[in-house]
């Protein structure tokens, strides 16, 4: 068998970011093994590797398809690559100080972040559903270990096991769904599938396949009702990892879903599949926002808020067009900044990982540590979607897209639930600025240059996107048109 035709020219250049991250991950582990005395340098080294990957991604600036029509590199995949790398870098910056403080610094954590990023890149670039699943599995295996990274903490082990068991099931659902689609269309490639859908009608069996796929991807996205793992896993995971976990895998899953929905576009008006997705979105917004109100643990609250945010992102995708791709791309970048930023501030609280990180722990933080308090308050305002933050402009884009696609009812539900969400986001601000610390129960805060730097990136990013979003819109708009088939 001759493999030569499978490898197009410049394929090395096209997957250079992935190669850099793979090799970099191994380098990190080897560095840790051979120079255990320089553990402090691991974080900066990981950062350099991520920056190198970002630079590598810029070398190839065309839209092209590789490996026999299974792997696409284009503007939009690059934008998502940058989102994954940004999320990874923020997580590394927070993890550096966190791990040093907790005393279990090691190369594995950074390496797993790098490899997980490779998995996400494959999900966003894969034109073949099997490539997507491959990427998803690479990512999932990294997450299993990352969540249980603090092996001495019981919650961490519990979270890891939960995510592993549920995640394995979810992957099974996805594979089953793909198999059924393959049975009908004789392909796993979304481009070929699109051609099939353009001439053929959907069969009832495909509805089953779609439901299975949505169950699996819904689990990965933490869409209600597939969400119950999220609060437990975020609570148990090391806090910087939880922040990364709440953002990056969702972005990768969303872009993979957008490709799939786009391929199915010709048949979507004839079947009620998107109504199902709309129900999932509405349920997520309602469940996420309603349950977040009663959470006193910050990480659990952020988990439920994340469920609601995926709901918002999903309503932009109910009709796939270039605006929905751009809206999701911008929302995920914004979400990376504000959510990892929020988890980052929580990671600065010096507490035993087994104990809950409650609202009482941040009482009075706003005046005690003004910058941490301000950063967390800003992240909350941004999550609540208040101007002039990035969260406002991104949410505005989502609702604008939904209304222009004719999904006014879903948009109204989205607005009503975000009124609810304002309550619990503001409660954090209330604890930051309007509550005195409980006497004898003050929680010390750690942090160093790396964490402060990460917070600066988040704060500046939230303001810049919120106040001058135009360049980002332009980039995302250009890129989005490249993704879609029309």
């Amino acid at each position, binding site marked *: 068998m001759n493999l030569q035709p499978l490898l197009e020219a410049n394929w090395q250049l096209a997957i250079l970011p992935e190669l850099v991250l793979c090799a970099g991950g191994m380098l990190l582990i080897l560095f840790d093994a051979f120079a255990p005395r320089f553990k402090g340098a691991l974080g900066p080294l990981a950062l350099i590797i991520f920056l190198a990957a970002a630079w590598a991604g810029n070398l190839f600036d065309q839209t092209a398809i590789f490996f026999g029509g299974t792997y696409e590199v284009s503007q939009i995949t690059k934008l998502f690559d940058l989102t994954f790398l940004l999320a990874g870098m923020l997580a590394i910056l927070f993890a550096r100080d966190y791990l040093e403080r907790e005393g279990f610094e090691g190369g594995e954590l950074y390496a797993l972040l790098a490899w997980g990023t490779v998995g996400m890149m494959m999900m966003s670039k894969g034109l073949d559903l099997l490539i997507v699943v491959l990427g998803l599995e690479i990512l999932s295996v990294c997450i299993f270990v990352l969540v249980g990274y603090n092996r001495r903490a019981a919650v961490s082990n519990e979270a890891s096991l939960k995510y592993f068991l549920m995640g394995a099931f979810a992957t099974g659902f996805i594979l089953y769904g793909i198999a059924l689609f393959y049975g009908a269309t004789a392909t796993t490639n979304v481009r070929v599938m699109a051609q099939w859908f353009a001439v053929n009608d959907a069969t009832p069996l495909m509805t089953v396949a779609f439901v299975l796929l949505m169950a699996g991807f819904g689990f990965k996205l933490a869409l209600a009702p597939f969400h119950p793992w999220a609060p437990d896993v975020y609570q148990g995971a090391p806090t910087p990892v939880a922040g990364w976990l709440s953002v990056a895998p969702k972005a990768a899953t969303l872009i993979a879903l957008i490709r799939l929905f786009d391929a199915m576009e010709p048949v979507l008006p004839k079947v009620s599949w998107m109504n199902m997705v709309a129900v999932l979105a509405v349920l997520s917004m309602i469940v996420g926002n309603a349950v977040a109100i009663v959470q006193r643990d910050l990480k659990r609250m952020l988990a439920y808020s994340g469920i609601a945010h995926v709901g918002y992102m999903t309503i932009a995708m109910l009709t796939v067009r270039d605006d929905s791709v751009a809206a999701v791309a911008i929302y995920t970048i914004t979400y990376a900044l504000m959510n990892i930023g929020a988890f980052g501030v929580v990671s600065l609280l010096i507490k035993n990982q087994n104990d809950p990180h409650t609202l009482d722990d941040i009482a009075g933080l706003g*005046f005690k540590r003004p910058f941490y308090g301000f950063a967390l308050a800003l992240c909350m*305002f941004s999550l609540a979607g*208040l*101007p*002039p933050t990035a969260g*406002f402009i991104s949410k*505005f884009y989502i*609702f*604008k897209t939904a*209304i*222009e696609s004719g999904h*006014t009812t879903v*948009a*109204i539900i989205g*607005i009503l639930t*975000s*009124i609810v969400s*304002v*309550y619990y986001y*503001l409660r954090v*601000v*209330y604890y930051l*600025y*309007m509550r005195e610390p409980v006497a004898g129960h003050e929680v010390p805060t750690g942090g160093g240059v790396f964490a402060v730097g990460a917070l600066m990136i988040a704060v500046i990013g939230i303001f810049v996107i919120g106040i*001058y*979003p*135009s360049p980002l*819109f*332009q980039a995302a*708009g250009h890129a989005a048109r490249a993704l879609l088939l029309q």
Partner: protein
Amino acid sequence: MPLLSTFLWLPIAGAIVLAFFPRAAAGAIKGFGLAVSLITFVISLGVLRGWQDGQAGFQFVESLDWIPQWGIRYALGIDGISLWLVLLTTFLTPIIFLSGWNAIKKHPKEYVIAFLVMETAMIGAFLATDLLLFYIFFELMLLPMYLVIGVWGGANRIYAAIKFFLFTIAGSLLMLLAIIYLVFQNYHQTGLPTFSIVDLYGTPLLPTAQLLLFFAFSLAFAIKVPLFPLHTWLPDAHVEAPTGGSIILAGVMLKMGTYGFLRMVLPFFPESSARWANLMITLSVIGIVYGALVAWVQPDMKKLVAYSSVSHLGFCVLAIFAMNQASIEGSILQMVSHGLSTGALFLLVGVIYERRHTRLLADYGGIARTMPIFAVFFVIAVLSSVGLPGLNGFIGEFLILAGTFQSHPVAATIAATGVILAAIYLLWLVQKVFFGPITNDANRNIPDMAWHEIAATVPLVVFMVWIGVHPNTFLKKMEPSVQHLIAQIHGRVEREVMVAKESSRHRVVESSSLEDSSPRRLVDSAGGAR
């Protein structure tokens, strides 16, 4: 340098500089805040110097691309409707810093920063001529106010702050959806995306869509005003807010609602506004009487003034939906007057609260003897609020009632009782607090007003008298814009009436006559009668 942008961004620039001040330098922080707000006020007066009389449209226009993909521009402008509200904002902010000079002991730095950010947001909302820009400023002012009530407020401040925030955000988020929908409809018909308020004025809408959008916008602004029955957040917010917060809340922030009705609701949805005018008028009249009656029985001074705000702002909304020249000019003047007189009342209540730490009427009596200067100022503020001829309150209320009477005589008559009730409850307050024997020994030795409190109150009194004696200074500048607004609304409503007549012989609205309602003539004749 563009004038509007200069005084719009100056306060927030000051706030950023202030963030780097050392926490301990409280005096320098307050002085800096006061200086920034005074400079802002002086620069904003430049608008009067370059003002072109007789021009109806926006002046000092600035327009830059901001998000060109969606047709969103950084567009500012000022016209006769917003002119005095902008100046009221820049005028009141230094007064707040002066009045709170000694009262704010907790976190003075954050206090000054919050008010400076709020000032930019409020000026911006009045100046913005782009709908999204307006919305951003409209929301931005909530955050600092939430912190002001929540951090520096009274005992029950958290409840009040959250209630204030949730009420307002609920309305404005629905308005956001309505904005998106309105812009989308306009884009659908013209093919050009735009958020410019003026460009959106002509957007044709289906009746149902217009009705829903009308209610979405109205809800947001009615909560802000607040219109009965959406007023319940106001007494809580006012009572718990620190003095400065109350002054800004009553003085400027409530006017966002009435301004929104004038700038957006009426011209965007003239047909729906005309059709539902009776509902809005009924609610305002209920608010006027209800607010006055509830104010009458309040044992707490601040709550009394807060409910009087509900009553007084009812007049403004009533006048807006009466939709004629006199009533709308009266409404704008009343917004400014209310800012001055209620601002002064909150300031003075703050003065006495700082000394005695009680606001209950029952704890006072006869303090005109211990605090004569304070008593003089308080009585002036009360008389201005009551509507004594010669002071500002009279002009606004007179124009409103005279204008409303032409189209809605019953509503005007009932609303007029609000004026009488105001006299009753406010003079009742004066009598209880200032006259009679001193029953409470704690009131025998209260220090009178300090220099900074007098300095804060005197400018307010000056303008109360100015508006009262020579309102034409103010009316003259707003007249062309109001005329234009009314012509615009009536033009569209009459067109619709004609269409409706032709199709079903069904009369929808009565167009009120514009001829004999020039407010300047009304004021002159009132002056003659006086």
